[in-house]
Structure formats: structure tokens, C-alpha cells
């Protein structure tokens, strides 16, 4: 392995730390957002299950609700 790529004439620590920091922050933010989305979708489905049949039918009249239910079942 060419160590020059790693050390970059002594600047490697600055370059690599910048890239690693950026990608770690982005990855953490992505995973956190994904987890929140999954959790919210799950909770939403749970709450709709507690509703009576009539309430659920009324709720399903809203297109967005139908989309949420469909998208969750796809995943």
C-alpha cells in the first residue's frame, strides 16, 4: 500500500479527519432519521389499529393516511 496516500506529505491527519468527520456525521444523521421514520410509521399503524372500524374508514378517506399505510406495508 502506498503510504503517501495516507500521509499526504504530513497533511494526512487534517485531510482524513475532515473527510471522516463529514462522513460520520452524515451517516449518523441518516441512520437517526431513518430510525425515527420507521418508529413513527410503526406507531402510526399501531394507533390506527386501536381505532374503531368507522373511525378507521373515516381516517382512510384522507389520501395521505392511505399513502402512509401503503408505504409502510411495502417496507
Amino acid at each position: 500500500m502506498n503510504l503517501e496516500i495516507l500521509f499526504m506529505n504530513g497533511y494526512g491527519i487534517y485531510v482524513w479527519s475532515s473527510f471522516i468527520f463529514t462522513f460520520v456525521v452524515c451517516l449518523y444523521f441518516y441512520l437517526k432519521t431513518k430510525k425515527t421514520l420507521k418508529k413513527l410509521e410503526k406507531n402510526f399503524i399501531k394507533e390506527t389499529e386501536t381505532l374503531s372500524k368507522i373511525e378507521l374508514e373515516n381516517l382512510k378517506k384522507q389520501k395521505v393516511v392511505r399513502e402512509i399505510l401503503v408505504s409502510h406495508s411495502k417496507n
Partner: protein
Amino acid sequence: MIKYLNPSYIFNLTGKILNLVKFFIIPIIIVGIIFSLFLSPKDYIQGDVVRIMYVHVPAAWISLLSFGTLSLLCIINFIFKIKSVTLVYKSLAPIGLTFNVIAIFTGSVWGQPTWGTWWAWDARLTSMLILMFFYIAFILSYKFIRDPINSSRICTGISIAGLINLVVIKYSVIWWSTLHQPASVNLTGETTIHISMLIPLSVMLLAFLLYCALIFLMKYRIETIRVKKKGIK
């Protein structure tokens, strides 16, 4: 036009675009990293440390662009009261803050070998730090102020004040004698950066923009579900 503002239409569209973005993002990030770390040339003065530019500059641009967009959306929402606009700016603000933090951190790391200091109270650096406080204030306002009218008013106030700061950020390197260099890439004026560096910079910008789109779409879905959940209770 009404169709495009319909929450169910937007929600459905976010799902489709999300899949498309997921498909393209990884190859573009890999190409961006290869270009910026291995293929792009060294700077004749700074050497390899110039590679920090490929994460610092796109992050700073996105942070400015996000704030500009959310300010515009706040003003539109303040005048026309469109619900889906609120969801958009709530989804956009955390992304802008993240990139603002990345820009400040990588800028500080870049400053040490080039200026000999991690931080200086220079006009550009300070105004970027102030932008971070605007982002934090904006996020706290919509998170903790329960009354939507009050929250919207305060968010609009913060975003307008932040807009003034954006102008200061843009012209800080011209108005004051700063450590930070003037812009090398100009949409309207002359671009002084060499094509061999402009290509990796553009690829990394595209990768970051795709990442923003990915997070934004997920956040938008989160905010929509939150609104609908409130409706059930």
C-alpha cells in the same frame, strides 16, 4: 398547480424520489471520494491539504442555500399560510445546521495548517458561526413553541434576520480584510479554480445534494406522519 401542493400527492412523490436517490447516491459518493482524495492534483502552495476543500466548500454552500431557501419559504408561509410549506422548512432546517457544523469543523481543520490557527474571529468565520446560532434558534422555535401562529411568526423573524447575515457572509471577504480567501467559483463572475479541481468539487457537490435530498424526503415524511398522528389523537 393545486395538485402539486396536495400533501398526499407530495407524500406519494417523496416515496418515488427517495428510491431514485437511494439508487444513485452511493456510486456518486464513491466517485467523488476517488476524485477528491486520489485523482485531483495538489495545490501548488497548499499541497495535499487543499483536498479539504472538497468537503468544506459544498458543505458551506449547502448550509447557505438551505438557510436562503427556508427564509424564502417562511416569508411565503407568513403571507399565504400554506401548510405544506411549514413541513418543507421544518425538514430543511436540520440539514442546513448539519452542513453548517461540517463547514465550520472542516474550515477549522483547514485553518490550522494554512493559517497556523484552528480559529480566528475573522468576519467570514464569525458570520458562519452566527449562522449556526440562527439555525439553532430557528429549530428551537418550531420545536418548543406550541402555538403554530406564534411559532411561524418567530421563525419568519429569525429567518429574515438570518438573511441579513447571509449577505454579510457572502460579502465579508470583500468588505473586510479577512484570513479567508475570496470566492474562487462564481456563477456570475470569473471562476478562478482550475478544471482539474472544479470537476471533483462538482461531483462532491452533487453527492452532498443527493444526500440532502435523501434526508429531506425522509424528514418530510416524518413531519407529515407527525401531523397525521396529531389528527388521530
